[in-house]
């Protein structure tokens, strides 16, 4: 098993289906639950709650991104799909059904991951005498460019029995995105029935779509889906190292949540396979980090991070062990002023008596000579009013030492032209 894992780790993108088979072997019991995770749950809950009425582009979209260094995007995708399916089956979510379009992996009921399989079989059972399925599959995997169909037509190959189940619908031309869009809508509306019920869309791999069509067409399809009223949420998987940065950022631009699957030790990947590195690499291929950026409606971005382990029973999420807090100092310009007051400074400021302020207690006028408090030094205050020189006995912190020019000068004489001072 370990060797198989390492083997698939070497060629992650080519042998995804093999890896899927590996997962399938170990995930037969539908009752095994994944351990609950706070963050991944919150992603699923947000998707479950879906869109708000009257928003500009209502449907919530999630992009799951991974790279060759940590190729577990598909596991996360399967996790999200299974969670949302269970929400739908329990009736907790805004969307009533799932429209699953797969290109890269096979999601046909026999070979799908465990709880998808179980939910599919549940879904195929008609509910309440009206034929109302909860999941519809758009199969772009079997014959994406219509080659098999052409072979059958020209008589060169045997007719492959198309599994014309009511759940699966075959798409024969992935390049025609307009057709794909209308297919998705048609199937989704068919699921929803006559009413205005919502459905959600899960797209297996955006990379495959980008292979067959240009970025602007794919982006157009995604944004059309997003703006449609009946679609509650959309989620897809993207392998970010297969495309230019621009493509990845365009897809991220259109999604309201981005989940990055990253290796735990980014430095370990890409190095030569020495004996020291192998253990780190092995660790990278069993665990990873999931960084999620939520774009909230008020314009702030919530960042969450969790670790996950790929184990025999599936994917498990745990809270992050080591916190590296990143201070967003790049956002703020640098200053050297202290514009805030600490609590101690605030209370001291409140105690400061302004020099010509009314004391309000009917006592004779006292000039604040920089001493700490007037009540304590009454003797000195009366002396000061007669104009004597005083020296501070108490040596404290900052003091104002005021030397009067002449003894006769009184602070509140009538000759003082400052009649606008509030004394």
């Amino acid at each position, binding site marked *: 098993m370990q060797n198989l894992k390492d083997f698939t780790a070497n060629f992650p993108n080519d042998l995804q289906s093999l890896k899927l088979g590996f997962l399938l072997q170990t995930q037969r019991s539908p009752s095994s639950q994944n351990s609950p995770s706070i963050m991944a749950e919150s992603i699923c809950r947000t998707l479950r709650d879906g869109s708000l009425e009257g928003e500009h582009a209502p449907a919530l979209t999630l992009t799951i991104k991974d790279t060759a260094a940590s190729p577990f995007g598909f596991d996360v995708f399967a996790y999200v799909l299974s969670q949302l399916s269970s929400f739908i089956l329990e009736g907790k979510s805004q969307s009533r059904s799932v429209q699953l379009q797969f290109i890269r992996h096979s999601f046909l009921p026999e070979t799908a991951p465990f709880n998808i399989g179980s939910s599919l079989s549940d879904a195929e059972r008609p509910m309440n005498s009206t034929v109302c399925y909860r999941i519809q599959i758009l199969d772009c995997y079997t014959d994406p460019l219509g080659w098999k169909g052409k072979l059958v037509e020209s008589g060169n190959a045997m007719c492959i029995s198309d599994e014309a189940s009511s759940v699966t619908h075959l798409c024969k031309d992935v390049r025609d995105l307009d057709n794909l869009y209308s297919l998705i809508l048609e199937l989704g509306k068919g699921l929803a029935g006559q009413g205005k019920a919502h459905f959600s869309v899960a797209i297996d791999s955006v990379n495959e779509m980008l292979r067959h069509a240009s970025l602007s067409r794919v982006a157009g399809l995604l944004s059309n889906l997003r703006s449609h009223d009946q679609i509650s949420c959309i989620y897809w998987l993207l392998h970010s190292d297969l495309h230019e940065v621009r493509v990845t950022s365009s897809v991220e631009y259109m999604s309201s949540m981005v989940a990055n699957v990253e290796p735990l030790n980014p430095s370990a990947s890409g190095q030569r396979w020495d004996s020291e590195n192998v253990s780190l690499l092995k660790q990278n291929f069993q665990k990873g980090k999931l960084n999620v950026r939520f774009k909230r409606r008020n314009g702030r971005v919530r960042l969450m991070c969790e670790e996950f382990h790929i184990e025999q029973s599936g994917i498990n999420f745990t809270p992050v062990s080591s916190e590296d807090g990143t201070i967003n100092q790049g*956002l703020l310009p*640098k*200053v050297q002023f202290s514009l805030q007051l600490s609590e101690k400074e605030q209370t001291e400021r409140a105690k400061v008596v302004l020099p010509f302020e009314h004391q309000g207690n009917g006592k004779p006028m006292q000039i604040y000579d920089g001493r700490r408090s007037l009540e304590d030094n009454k003797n000195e205050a009366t002396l000061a009013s007669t104009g004597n020189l005083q020296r501070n006995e108490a040596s404290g912190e900052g003091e104002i030492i005021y030397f009067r020019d002449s003894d006769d000068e009184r602070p509140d004489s009538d000759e003082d032209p400052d009649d606008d001072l509030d004394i």
Partner: protein
Amino acid sequence: MLPTGNCTFRATGIVKPSERERVSLVDALMSATKGRTSSFTRNVLSASSSQTPGIKCGPNGTFFVSSGISDLDKILGGGIPLGSLVMVMEDAEAPHHMLLLRNFMSQGLVQDQPLLYASPSKDPRGFLGTLPCPSSKDDKLRNHDPQQEKGLRIAWQYKKYFGENQQSFDGHRGSKQEFCNDFDLRKPLERHFFSGQRVDCVSVKDSPNLVALQDRCTTFLAQFPRNDGSISSVGRIAIQSLCAPQCTHSNMEWDVLSFISYLKSMLWSANAVAVVTFPPSLLSESFCKRWQHMADILLSVRAIPDDDKELAKLLTGYQDMVGFLNVHKVARTNTQVPLILEATTFSIKLQKRRFLVLECLNQAPIDGSSGASYGTSGSCSGSSKTGTLEF
């Protein structure tokens, strides 16, 4: 602000404010209560143009149009000059550019200025339903008085000067209200403002190139020719998310650049302003730079992380903030004197979730524990850039 270190100094007397300083200090007090703007604002006592309330005369023979946000008008030195192109760099993670666009569009509609709106969605008219309505004056004025009296102990009878200035203040404020309204983001604009011929909407999504948009702009701007006579009407163009990924023209970077330069030249000979938002992260770097050079006024918006304890410690008022606005370039026409801003980063706040305000940042120093007092710090800003002082 208290000195953070120990110091002794000699008091040599009482500072007596002169007559003129008193008046400006009154202004400072009045403006200080509204939020932290600069404490000495220049009183641009410019009378609004007699014909139309939406246009203000500015220095050097320019005319200003309001951006819809009074704080932004102040930052830009009075408003958006006629004939200029404002470009807003979006942040992929936050929709703040929509706030700026909405205020801009509403301001034009409220002042009866025709509007051309282009967007990459299939139904641009739907966006008009989200435009904010000008708020009634009662909401705003009620807040001012209690805030003025709080926590301010002044040993100087400034109140007796209010009688003299109150008249001019109200008059000033009155004319300002017409130039720039306060918009309540929770109340939608009444339908009669954008029904009819006043608003023209264009969707750029399915068009193969920008020729159609270019033609629409040409016909729109032909209504506002600029000649030496009086200004009869002013037009506004709002283009949202130019070069968004779902548009076909996003691949044709040179074509988009030539469209922008065409628009700029058309604006220069018309009585109109244009606001264009674009996502810089989706463009190649060289084109991003070219676009930035094309702009007369360049702004950018940025998202801030949610529940970030470090930022909450560094900034006061973090709870109300939704993002940052950076001002990179401000247009100055008919003059060689540049506009030097005191600050280029502003926080975008939604007061009571309804009113958009821009405020300077009040932030603690990065290494506050070293306790630099005034005496030791030589320059005001750690990173000194030529021409701009950043606080």
